[in-house]
């Protein structure tokens, strides 16, 4: 005979201290922060080892700091829109997150597209992975960020398709959100350190 107390316990929803997907993504983001910190550290030390006025080398193109401000603005706006989507979903239901998340995805795609165009321009000007130290560091650091941006954008699109199809999963969206915030917030640091 089944105990009635056991029946009551089973009828309660299962609760954990926090979301496993979020914790896993947080650990991943932790390691990625350290990875980019190592990149930036190496870059700063090498740049300071060069005599003043010789960075970037005279035969290498200048990195387009001002023009990349547009990319930066697009990415930051994308992060804000994803945050707005999260708030809308938690306050007014998943359907309220469709528009801000769509805008966030479009802005993220705009950032990736503009970065691709910038890379093509720099390659035409002669900045390659093997052309100089700045070229090596640029493609290593900014390339690593681009890989993260593309992967995070893919995950964000995955969440968006789920949302549109009516299969909103807060756990998945929370983890993807964390990765996207990492991509968004690490970019201004890279922009100010590498491009300037």
């Amino acid at each position: 005979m089944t105990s009635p107390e056991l029946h009551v316990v089973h009828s309660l929803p299962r609760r954990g201290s926090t979301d496993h997907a979020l914790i896993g993504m947080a650990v991943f983001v932790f390691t990625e922060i350290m990875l980019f910190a190592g990149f930036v550290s190496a870059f700063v030390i090498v740049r300071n080892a060069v005599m003043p006025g010789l960075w970037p080398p005279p035969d290498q193109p200048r990195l387009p700091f001002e023009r990349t401000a547009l990319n930066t603005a697009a990415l930051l706006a994308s992060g804000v829109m994803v945050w707005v989507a999260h708030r809308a979903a938690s306050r007014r239901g998943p359907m309220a997150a469709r528009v801000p998340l769509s805008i966030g995805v479009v802005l993220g795609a705009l950032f990736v597209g503009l970065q691709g165009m910038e890379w093509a321009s720099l390659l035409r000007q002669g900045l390659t992975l093997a052309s100089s130290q700045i070229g090596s560091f640029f493609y290593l650091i900014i390339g690593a960020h681009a890989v993260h941006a593309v992967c995070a954008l893919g995950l964000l699109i995955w969440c968006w398709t789920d949302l549109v199809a009516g299969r909103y999963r807060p756990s998945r969206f929370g983890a993807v959100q964390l990765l996207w915030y990492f991509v968004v917030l690490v970019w201004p640091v890279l922009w100010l350190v590498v491009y300037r």
Partner: protein
Amino acid sequence: MRMKLLTRVVLASLARASQWSALFVAMLPARAFACAVCGGGNPANRFAFFMMTIVMSLLPLGLFAVAFLWLRARLLARNDSEFEERDAVNVPPRPALVDSTSQDNGETLPPPVPAA
């Protein structure tokens, strides 16, 4: 007696050798310029190396602190609403804890049928 003396001499020799070894290892990079950054370079480079050493040392500690505070905040928020779900659940009426074959199951018995 001789063994004790021998042991003491050996231990003293080992201690002195380890001291000289530590000093040698500490001086080695400076003498050999094994690391171009910490052994040489211009002042800006050395300063950058010093600052980045600090950043790279403190960054993981800061991240651990942030993770700890975040988890703590989530656990506190969870504990605040610990019994809300339990209290909100519609608990079904508690069935009898006795065998169904028993007559005394806690229910009100129907009135006795008068004999014909």
